[in-house]
Structure formats: C-alpha cells, structure tokens
C-alpha cells in the first residue's frame, strides 16, 4: 500500500520536473522573441535541461528501483590455443608476402619514398626563418616615434619616465617595439662601446622580454627597473638592462640612438643583439 503511495508520489514529482522543463522552454521562446537576455537565457536553459535531467534521474531511481542487480561473466581472455591459431593465421599471410623478397623491398621503398614526398607540403606552412629573427625594422637614421606616431625629441620625456617607441613608419611593429627611458646621465653604467648610443641619459632597449617574449609593460621608477607582467623578469635599466630577477636569462638588447640637429631622436643602427627569447641559431 505505502509502496504504491511512494510510486504515486514519485510520479507526481517526475511530472512536475518535466512540467518545469516545458514552462522554461516556453520561457526561452519568449525571451528570445523579446530580443534576448543572457542571464534569463542561462537560467531558463538550466531549468529546461535540468527539469528533464531531474525527471529522468528520479524515474530511474524511484520507479525502477526494483530492477535487480545482475551478475555477468567478464570478457574472458583467449586461451593459448586460440592465440596460437590467430598468430599462425597472421604469420601465414606474412610469409606468403615475404616469399617475394625483391618485390617486398621494392614495395617498402615505394611506400617510404611516397611518405617522404608527402612531407614536402609541410614546407609550405611557413616562410624560411632566414635572418628574420636577427633583424628588425630599425635602420640607421630611423627616427623614433611614439605609439601615436609622434616624433620623439630629446625633451619629450621627464627624467625617470619611459615611453614605447617605434621606427618612423613602423608603428606597432612587433619585433621593433622598444622602450625609451630617460635617467640621470651620470647614473647610467653602460659598457663603453654602448655608452655613446645613449646620449644625455636617454637609453632605448628592446621592449620584448628575453624570457618568453612578452612586452615589458611595467617601469618601476623607484628602482629604475623594467618588469615583465607575464613572469616577473626584472631588468636594471641603469646597468645595461641586465636581468636582476626572474627567469629572463639575457639583458635586453640596446638600440643605439643619437639626438639629431632638430632635437629629434634617431637610431644609429639596429639592436645590439637579436631581440626576444633565445633560439638555437642565436650565437652564445
């Protein structure tokens, strides 16, 4: 008696679940027709799907509880005789083919050659690297511009501040991006051959981190360090951008610049080293 009441109760709940699902689905029509609303769509979709899910689960759990557990044998591994006969069948075929040794070798050769030939289209996937990792768009005489394309002069920057610069005509160039930082000239400790490239405390480094290639977005003015937002590699601006913290292994390449007669800064060449993360062909 109580079992039947249980069943009736379960049936009612399952029906309610499906009814909720139907109503929610109708609600979805309405929301969609009214122009759509993300939150309402999500909630109604959840109700429509969840109603079906809950109904089915209740059905399986409450109305099918009397389906008994069964025990079945597991898949049996083949016996030694079966294995033996299967192996013999395969080997028989192999022997039949192998008998023609010359033809077998020719066939293998043809398959190998075809495989090699099939590799060649992979070459079409990209250009040869060539020297593209060694050069950027900076050339002797290229004038420095900001990301907005404005020319940079010797007094664009206050002391102890920085800006992103590009060669004129190449704003946004991924491998030419550089940071111009102005520091007190007597604080700079560059190697003698690079000191001339940083006139009046204006020094330019590649903006690409030598670790994983992220743009160095953070200038810590207090310690005069550049920090990468990705993995926190930190470079000492005063000391030739040597890495002082984090996973970056190499200093940032420096871009030698000059102050022109008109006050506009321009490069005197490309970066001192390849920019960005190290690669196999980079001289060590």
């Amino acid at each position, binding site marked *: 008696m109580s079992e039947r009441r249980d069943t009736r109760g379960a049936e009612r709940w399952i029906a309610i679940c499906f009814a909720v699902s139907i109503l929610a689905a109708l609600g979805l029509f309405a929301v969609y027709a009214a122009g759509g609303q993300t939150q309402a769509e*999500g909630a109604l979709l959840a109700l429509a*799907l*969840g109603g079906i899910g809950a109904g089915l689960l209740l059905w399986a759990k409450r109305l099918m509880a009397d389906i008994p557990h069964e025990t079945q044998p597991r898949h049996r*591994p083949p016996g030694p005789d079966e294995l033996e006969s299967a192996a013999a069948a395969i080997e028989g075929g192999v022997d039949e083919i192998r008998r023609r040794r010359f033809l077998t070798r020719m066939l293998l050769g043809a398959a190998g050659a075809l495989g090699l030939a099939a590799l060649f289209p992979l070459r079409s996937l990209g250009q040869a690297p060539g020297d593209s990792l060694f050069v950027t768009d900076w050339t002797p005489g290229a004038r420095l511009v900001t990301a907005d394309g404005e020319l940079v002069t010797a007094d664009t920057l206050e002391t102890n501040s920085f800006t992103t610069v590009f060669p004129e005509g190449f704003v946004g160039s991924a491998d030419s991006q550089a940071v111009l930082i102005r520091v007190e000239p007597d604080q700079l400790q560059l190697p003698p051959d690079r000191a001339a490239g940083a006139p009046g405390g204006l020094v330019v480094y590649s903006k690409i981190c030598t670790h994983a290639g992220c743009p160095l977005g953070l200038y810590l003015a207090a310690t005069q360090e550049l920090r990468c*937002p990705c993995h926190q590699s930190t470079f000492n601006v005063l000391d030739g951008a040597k890495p002082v*913290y984090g996973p970056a292994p190499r200093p940032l390449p420096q871009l030698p610049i000059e102050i022109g007669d008109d006050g506009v800064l321009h490069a005197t060449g490309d970066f001192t080293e390849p920019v960005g*993360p190290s690669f196999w062909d980079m001289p060590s």
Partner: protein
Amino acid sequence: MIVRRAVDGIDERLDATSFVKRNLRKVFPDHWSFMLGELALYSFVLLILTGIFLSFFYVASSSQTVYLGPYAPMQGQTVSQAYESVLRLSFEVRAGLVMRQTHHWAALIFMASVVAHVVRVFFTGAFRKPREISWLIGIGLLIGGIAAGFSGYSLPDDLLSGTGLRIIYSAVLSIPVVGTWLAFLLFGGEFPSSELLPRLFVMHILLIPLLLLSLLGAHLAVVWHQTHTQFRGPGTTEDTVRGIPVWPRFALKGIGVAFMTFAVIAMLGGLAQINPVWFYGPFVPYTAPAPAQPDFYVGWLEGLLRLWPNWEFSAFGHTVGELFLPAVVVPGIIFTALALWPFVEARVRRDTAAHHYAQRPREAPVRSGIGAAGITMFIVLMLAGSNDVLAKYLLIEVDTLNSVLLVLLFTLPAVVGLLTFWICRDLGRRGTRPIENPPRVALRRKGDGGFDAAHVSPASPADREDVP
C-alpha cells in the same frame, strides 16, 4: 507496436538482434566515482553543440577593421576581424553570449572532469592490466583537451590570448636544432603572422576535435568490450561484473546525468561571466595585460615558467633557450611518466595478472602517496601561475611569494605524500570497517590509580578481505 516493427525491420536487414540484446542486457557497476568520466563525455557533447553554433559567427582573420558595434568603450578602435566577430557574437547575435560562455564553461568542466577521472582511475588502480590501453588513450585525451582549450581561448584575438600564443611561440623557438624552423612552420612565420588565426581555427574546430572524437570512441569501445572495474562487494568476484543492465535503468540515469550536466553548465554560461574579452581589449603586440592568467589546466605550466631559474645553455656555438627545460622538457617528462605509470608499476610489483577489482587507495599506499604528492605539486605550481594576483591579495611582494612557493614546491609534496602513505598503510592494516570490528583493549586499573593494557585483540583477519 512501432518499436517492434522498427526492430523487426532492422533485424531483417542487419541480423542485429543478438548483438542488440546482448548489449542492452550488459550490466554496469554503480559507484559515484564512475560518473566522473561520464561528466567529461557529456561536457564534450555540449562543447560540440555550442561550438558548431559559434563557428558560424567567428571570423578567423587578423585583418584590421574599425569597430562600429554597440559596445561603446570600443567604438572607433581599430581591432582585428576576429576580435570584432567575437564582440558581435557577444553583443549582437541573439543567444550568442550565452552560447559563447556556455562553451567556455563546458571546456573548463570538461578538463576538470577529465583530470578528476584520471585521478580516480589512478588511485583505484583501474589502469592495471588489462586496461592499460584505456589509460594511454585517456592520457591522449587529457593532452588533446589541453590543446583544444588553449587553441580555443586563443581565437578571440584579445590581449590575454595573444600573450599566451606569444609564450607558446617562444617555447617552440627554444627547441634545439629544429626550434626556429618548427616555430616558423607552425605559426606561419615570425610572430605575429597573419596565417596564425586561420590555422588555429582549423586546429580548434577540425583537427583536435577529430582526434578527441576518435580517442573518445576508442576509449568507450574498449571500456564496453572489457567491462568496467568495480569495488569488492556482496556477490562480486574477480571474474564477474555485477550491476544494473544498460537498458533501461542505467541508460535513463546516464541521460539524466547528461541533462543535469548540461543544465549546470548552461546556468554558468548564463549567469557567471567568463573570458570578457571586451575588458581585455584587442591584441596589440606591444602591450601585455597585467595580471595575466591562463585557464586553470594551463596554470601549472605557467607556474613552472614563473618559478624556473634563468638557466640558459650554450652548445657548439648555439643557444638552448631558457624556456626549453620548463616549457618543453619537464612537461614532456611529466606526461611520459603519467602514460608509462601502469607499465612501471606492473614491472616494480612483478605483477602480470589481470585485475578487475578497483582498489581502494589504502590497498596501495605507495601509489597513493606518490599520487597525492603529484597532486600537491600541481596545486603549488598552479598557485605559482597566479603569483601576481595571489601576492596582491596577500599584500606581500611577488618576490617573497615566489621564494615561499619554491620552498613549498619541494617540501609540501613530500610531506603530503608521506602523510598519505602512512594513513593508507594504517587504514589498510585496520581493514575496511575498523569501527564495526575494532581492535579490543582490556584495561586493568592498577593499585596506584594508573591503567595497564592487559589484553589486545586485533581486528579479525577476515575484515582484511573487504567483505562486509
């Protein structure tokens, strides 16, 4: 009546009744932990359904265009067509945002279920002979899932995903001898190349799903063929499988769980914002977002990159980049070790027998200890992958946090692993139900008021057999 006629019709042509009958009566053992793999399967189904919808609107092109859509903060900005199409999908296509967010949440839940499923199989020894093939396919699915997720969240061409791609490019570049060529062939030239987005799109909607689908089909077919493992229980033996038949109860439950999974993910997709690319802004090669975080299943790799020392090697006048070890070698070792685990364990245990019982973690204390240590290591690395955010909330310097995490990376897994080992070993000795049948101790009061353990009776040996 209609069903009967359909079955007859099919049977007359395919002679399928014995096959159908056998498989509909096939029994599956019931345990909550066997559902984790199902969750992965159902979220994968949802990924395909929502993904098809998204693919109709996404434009895989990095050509620049001026944004003129309804999202005011971005109006007039130059963005890529890919980014614009994602904004259009989010703000203009009706039901587009709910589909997009559901897709992203489904990916996260897919990966979480796959990881939980791998963990379950590991700790219960369900990978043991004859199920090593399922394990290998499963590891393939795990790696394929990471690739699918990464290629997917790189498609919107926003600032965050562009930064992730740049890091992968740099990692490929660091591979000795072939790295430069490989990076140029994979990425279509020096980063960022205009070939990249179309290529990622094909990978994400064709190659990787095809791979995942084939692996998934093989995975399920093998499970079906080999029958499922089960725990010891009343009426079970090693040679039989005990459970409820597929049709109708098990199937109804499975479909019910599928719909519940869809419901939860759809709710997240509607109510919980995820990957709001309009906040990150379009990809610009000379800016990086701070703080930047990948999705959780890539977090441990990111943590590895953040904690790894700045070692760089030179060989024969060439350079082996810093990234090579943490981004290529170490993950390679981790996945290889994971894939080979069943074979290594069988070799160490000299175990060539087939096993159909799932073990309790306490039955293999060494394995459980190593597993717990591994999970701890991944958690520490994941925390390291968000060290900048963490440092902000903890109000400490990132550098300090890194030092702490580095110490934790080496100590915590050892501590957790040993602790797990001890607990499992002890539980194993006490049997499955130590409280029902506890060791009895008779105490005798001594003349000076103290106590004396007079007699200890250990738990009965029968209890060790896990027979309730």
